[in-house]
């Protein structure tokens, strides 16, 4: 009887082992939270640089309004940053010159990973806000001022959040000591990220100018200027000075994705008989020889 009882037990244990094996193949092992070994450093450095590159691309794509969910990448970058920071604080890295150099590099790459996580947050915020920005510009260019103003109102708090996220990303990037990065490629990745974040910062400033214009300038004045520009007319409004100031402050070259739209809005200056920043008259003609509008090409 004893022998009889053991066999089903063996069978059950065997089945359970198989089930455990099956389960294990689908379970993601959690990364170790313990301090990494020094041998891991090169791999971690590359991971950080790769992560920043990925975040930069994500930031570029975010201007289309849709990005892959960055939350996993965000967490992995945060965790990587913490790992590298912990390692840079380990005493073993202070015993030699090479050790101290590795410690400084670990700090730099920790900052890189942290910056990548900040860029991920920024990308997510931008992707969420782009549809509103698109709608505001679309309505404004179509002379639908009320709709544009209403969108601008919704946009304002989001722009504040975006500016904070941009500042955080730029601050994190500024915290990277580029001289301590171990390859030129990594330095190039860092420069590209900084450039992209700065571009976004400038773009937000320009969008804010439009939001301010919609808030501060009378809707009728805006509508009149927009329609006059569309019709190729010039208007003379008594209260267009403020509008001119707002339009002159717009810098399309800093508008990034919205450069063209900003240029179109700035073109309203023509309807107000104003001059562009380049000092050219609004009609597009200068004073030089041969600068007059042609009647024909004959």
């Amino acid at each position, binding site marked *: 009887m004893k*022998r*009889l009882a053991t*066999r*089903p*037990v*063996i*069978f*059950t244990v*065997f*089945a359970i082992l*198989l*089930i455990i*094996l*099956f389960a294990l*193949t689908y379970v993601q092992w959690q990364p170790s939270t313990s301090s990494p070994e020094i041998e891991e450093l090169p791999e971690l450095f590359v991971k950080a640089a790769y992560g920043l590159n990925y975040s930069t691309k994500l930031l570029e*794509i975010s201007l*289309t*309004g*849709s*990005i*892959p*969910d960055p939350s996993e990448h965000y967490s992995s970058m945060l965790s990587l940053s913490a790992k590298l920071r912990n390692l840079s604080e380990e005493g073993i890295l202070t015993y030699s010159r090479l050790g101290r150099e590795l410690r400084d590099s670990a700090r730099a790459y920790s900052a890189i990973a942290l910056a990548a996580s900040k860029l991920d947050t920024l990308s997510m915020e931008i992707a969420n806000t782009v549809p509103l920005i698109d709608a505001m510009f679309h309505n404004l260019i179509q002379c639908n001022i009320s709709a544009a103003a209403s969108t601008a109102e919704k946009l304002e708090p989001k722009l504040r959040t975006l500016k904070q996220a941009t500042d955080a990303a730029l601050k994190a990037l500024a915290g990277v000591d580029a001289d301590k990065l171990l390859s030129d490629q990594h330095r190039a990745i860092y420069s590209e990220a900084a450039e992209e974040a700065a571009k976004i910062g400038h773009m937000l400033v320009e969008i804010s100018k439009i939001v301010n214009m919609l808030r501060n300038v009378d809707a009728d004045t805006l509508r009149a200027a927009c329609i006059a520009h569309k019709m*190729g007319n010039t208007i003379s409004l008594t209260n267009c000075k403020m509008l001119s100031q707002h339009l002159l402050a717009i*810098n*399309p*070259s800093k*508008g*990034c*994705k*919205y*450069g*063209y739209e*900003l*240029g*179109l809005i*700035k*073109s309203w*200056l*023509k309807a107000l008989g104003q001059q*562009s*920043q*380049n000092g*050219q008259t609004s009609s*597009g*003609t*200068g004073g*030089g020889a*041969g*600068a*007059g*509008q*042609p009647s*024909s*090409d*004959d």
Partner: protein
Amino acid sequence: MGREAALGLDSLQATTNGAVEMLGWEHPEIFLLSPLIVLALILYRRSKKNVEALEKLFVPVLRRKYLRISLTLFKLLFLASVLVAAAGPYYTYQVEEHVPVEDAHLLKGKPVIHVILIDVSKSMSYQLGLTSRLDAAKKLLETYLYKLGEKDVVHLVAFYGEVRPLYTGKPVDAVAALNKLRADKKYTAIGDALAYACSYARASRLPAVILLVSDGKNNYGGDPVQAAEVLREANIPLAVVAVGDDGVLGRVAEAAGGKVYLLNEFTSEAVLDFASQVARDARYSALSARGEAVISKTVYDYSPAVVAAVLAVVFFVASMVEGV
């Protein structure tokens, strides 16, 4: 499923489903454990006699031979299902997904022919901001050319009273031909230029787009609006860059169902982003007109693994009728 997400294409809408392409295993090494099933079977068979004796005493229903065989089979199938599920079977298939214009960068690998019509009549030499209209247009086009895909083909055509093809080939190499252009010719025949471009695009097997760059002072040749209507009928997209003022170009673009971009001293300040936008829209419209604004991707479907896991549970429960 995980790989789908990794591609970052979840948001894209699937339009057509393809056939099953292949069956695969995520962890084929698991099958190395299959001898264990045989081992388990041997153990079970060796205990059979004792089990039968037990059945005779306590569980008379198991005297039925077919039930006993079934229970053996269930145990065997349970183990086999666990093994199969653990090996992670999946099948793959191709789906074509429509790409919205916002994701046009995903279509960069598809070739497009860009027929660029540039006005070199005298009126293009007049001032636009600090430069001439033609120079502003050249600057825009240069950036446009650099923004195109490597597989794209450019057909650069200068027009005035006549239509003169200048270059056909890779986008980047067109810059040299572009820089040689001078705005010193008589007349502007927009209609004739569009008619030429239409013939060229029609003869092309690749998706084509026509980019018209002009100040719109049409004064020669056929009616540009009529020529634009022909483009619409032929399903050939047109993008218009109106240099200075749009003149007749607004009506031309409207007739062709295209879009007008205004290049003036203000929009030219953002020439890089402006050109990128025109290039993106132009490529997209060409591909869209031919129904090629789609990307193909491989989908990994792990439902066979789920089915195997469910079967394993069913067989396990069924085999428990006998007791462990």
